[in-house]
């Protein structure tokens, strides 16, 4: 390799700089806090599925609901954790309890720099819950 | 081989940066369009396809026209086209990329473009158009780069390239046929629903494309040591002549069917184009210019003396290209929407951002042609030896 010395040094500097957010966080034990999610205060204790299921899977669940409602015309969802039947609707079911988008949905999404475009169309209910 | 596009003299780089500036301006306009929506174009509820789609339609024809050099050379051993085939194939690549770009900027949700591949729909002609265009791009990329890199190494091309090249011939015909099918199967649009639309598209493609190829070959000759040869140019000129005659004949057939039958649904669109209706006369001057250019081009091209003289041939080719660009790139698409399905006469004219974005796409195509031709000529050692300044 020509200029091996310069290239390898440059490469190491780049890798160190590029991975700095990771090792700085590890070393200093500081950095942004995990998001605080506010759970519904309307008395409801049962979601469509369990929290452990929803956190990693709510995106797939919503996609599944989207296809079932829009493309297949079925609107009833039977929960696998509590057996109850729910209306497959983001605005009417999910946001009936989780009605404060800013404190619930956005808390994690903003932290992770994720911007799902659901709310370009689906209307968030007014008022906090 | 690609790195040959990255070296050049002052003229070359000035040209490249000029094109990049135009592309940049269009890019900014496109970002504006992406943020605000297609409302910044002249399109509206009644005229939903306009300048972008019209350019796409015209450029599919230019892309298909590569077959007019490939067929004689590879199928019939017409040696004179030997030096031209790479220019035709590179032009096809640039044209197809421009086509895809025009579709992309016309879409309401370009972020969802992969839905066409994720949900293939065989009963939609638009699906097949996507397949055909993508396939044609791949074919031309493979063919041009394989043959050129073999030429560079001084080797004969590999055996498997011959069937691929033969495949590109009917494939070229198919891309423009399927594009015509987008229009000619719609009961809602009597102006387009004619069996002759696909043959007309092909005839005008085989006139406009080779005309452009002649002009490009002569431009390249001016700046480099490349010389296509008088025989190649003349044969292409003959092809343009016959194709233009056939195209004009087809147009006259359309005019007859519409006007003689006197069915209002058919007549009104021709009226809109050539005389204007209910105060909308925007197309009429353009269409008559197209007619004039067609007549001028045929007078020049049919007459052997003017066809064989290079200066008049150049005028003839520009006239052909201009006439057919107006016909396909302005008249044909817009006239399908005026009057609307409810008989309303509506206005459409492209807006400044719409035209800037379109210009940027044309600049992209020209940039691709410049870079690819540079590569081809460098490989052949036919760039002019000039002092670098």
């Amino acid at each position, binding site marked *: 390799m020509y200029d091996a010395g310069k290239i390898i040094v440059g490469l190491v500097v780049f890798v160190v700089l590029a991975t700095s957010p990771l090792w700085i966080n590890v070393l200093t034990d500081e950095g942004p806090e995990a998001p605080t999610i506010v759970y519904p205060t309307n008395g409801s204790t049962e979601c469509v599925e369990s929290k452990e299921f929803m956190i990693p899977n709510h995106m797939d669940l919503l996609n599944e609901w*989207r296809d079932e409602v*829009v*493309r297949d*015309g079925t*609107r009833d969802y039977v929960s696998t954790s509590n057996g109850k039947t729910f209306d497959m609707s983001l*605005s*009417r079911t999910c946001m009936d309890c989780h009605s404060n988008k800013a404190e619930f949905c956005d808390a994690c999404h903003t932290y992770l720099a994720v911007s799902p*475009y659901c709310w*370009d*169309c*689906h*209307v968030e*209910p*007014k008022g906090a819950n | 081989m690609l790195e040959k596009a990255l070296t050049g003299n002052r003229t070359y780089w000035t040209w490249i940066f000029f094109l990049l500036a135009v592309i940049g301006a269009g890019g900014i306009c496109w970002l504006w369009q992406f943020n*605000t*929506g*297609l*409302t910044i174009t002249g*399109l*509206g*509820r*009644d005229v*939903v*396809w306009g300048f972008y789609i019209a350019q796409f339609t015209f450029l599919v024809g230019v892309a298909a026209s590569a077959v007019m050099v490939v067929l004689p050379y590879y199928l019939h051993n017409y040696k004179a086209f030997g030096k031209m085939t790479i220019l035709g194939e590179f032009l096809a690549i640039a044209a197809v990329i421009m086509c895809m770009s025009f*579709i992309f900027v*016309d*879409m*309401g*949700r*370009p972020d*969802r*473009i992969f*839905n*066409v*591949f*994720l*949900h*293939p*729909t065989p*009963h*939609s*002609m*638009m*699906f097949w158009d*996507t397949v055909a265009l993508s396939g044609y791009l*791949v074919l031309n990329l493979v063919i041009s780069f394989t043959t050129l890199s073999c030429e560079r190494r001084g080797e004969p091309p590999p055996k498997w390239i011959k069937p691929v090249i033969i495949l590109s011939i009917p494939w070229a015909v198919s891309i423009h046929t399927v594009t015509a099918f*987008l229009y000619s199967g*719609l*009961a*809602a*649009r009597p102006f387009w629903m004619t069996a002759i639309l696909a043959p007309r598209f092909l005839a005008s493609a085989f006139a406009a494309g080779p005309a452009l190829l002649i002009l490009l070959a002569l431009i390249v000759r001016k700046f480099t040591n490349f010389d296509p040869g008088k025989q190649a140019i003349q044969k292409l000129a003959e092809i343009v002549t016959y194709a233009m005659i056939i195209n004009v004949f087809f147009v006259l057939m359309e005019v007859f069917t519409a006007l003689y039958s006197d069915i*209002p*649904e058919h007549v009104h669109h021709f009226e809109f184009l050539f005389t204007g209706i209910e105060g909308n006369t925007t197309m009429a001057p353009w269409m008559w210019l197209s007619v004039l250019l067609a007549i001028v081009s045929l007078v020049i091209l049919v007459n052997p003396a003017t066809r064989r003289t290079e200066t008049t041939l150049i005028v003839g080719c520009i006239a052909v290209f201009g006439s057919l660009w107006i016909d396909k790139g302005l008249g044909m698409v817009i006239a*399908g929407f005026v009057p*609307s*399905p*409810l*008989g*309303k006469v509506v206005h459409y004219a492209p807006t400044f951002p719409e035209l800037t974005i379109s210009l940027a796409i044309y600049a992209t195509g020209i940039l691709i042609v410049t870079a690819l031709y540079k590569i081809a000529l460098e490989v052949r050692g036919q760039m002019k030896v000039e002092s670098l300044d």
Partner: protein
Amino acid sequence: MAGNRRDFLKLAGLTALGATGASSIKATKADASTGGGHAENSSDGVRLAMVIDLRKFTKNDALIQRCIDACHETHNVPNFENDPKNEIKWIWSDDFETAFHSQEFHFIREDLKEKPTLLLCNHCDNPPCTRVCPTQATWKRESDGIVMMDWHRCIGCRYCVVACPYGSRSFNFKDPRPGIDEITVDYPTRMKGVVEKCTFCEERLARGLEPACVEVCDNDEIIFGDLNDPTSKVRQVLAERMAIRRKAGLGTQPEVYYIIDDPRTLQEVAPAAVVEVAEGGDHA
């Protein structure tokens, strides 16, 4: 090094192509069930249709606007006033001559000439719009015949708008929300870049309600029902009255019927024919 770089690029390109192709093939299999295109006139299943009784609409009728408002408010359809280019309409009114302009009426009866005619998606039985959609974002539902829209999938190519002979479809040239006075929380809006149209209120039908425009009628001005049910109101009224459809000659099989009728009764003009009809006459 140069040779290896080329091979690497070729391999990368082929892999990308292969991945796209593979996912397309998988998707074709998955999508086989939601095939678009037209539905044959099936005698099983529901075939929803609408009958608009034009006899009951007069020139300055407030009902027209009530129907339009009911629909547009329920579905968050924006109102871009005086902006015909960006206009979105799921249901609107035009005069009779324009609505049926391919009939080329001459010497048309005065009251018919300016009769306000409600126009909307015809939910054709042989829809050209679903035939052309490249992503099946619009398709004809087998279960009830509704020509549906999937706004998650629409790429905004507007091919369906081009293919519709009735001008029923609208494209969102810009963000619709600024044009909505009061958003109905119950129903989503759409975003810029997708095509929209009447969906026969499929979300209301799912809850056992009538379409919004039908609900505001109090005298059967609009009748809605299942054509496959011989006892339905739509079938009854079509058996009794003369109805036409827009551009029926194109073969689209539109399922919105318009009752136009001679105000003089049959008894006045051809008493013999009345006897024939009563005795069971000719059934088409």
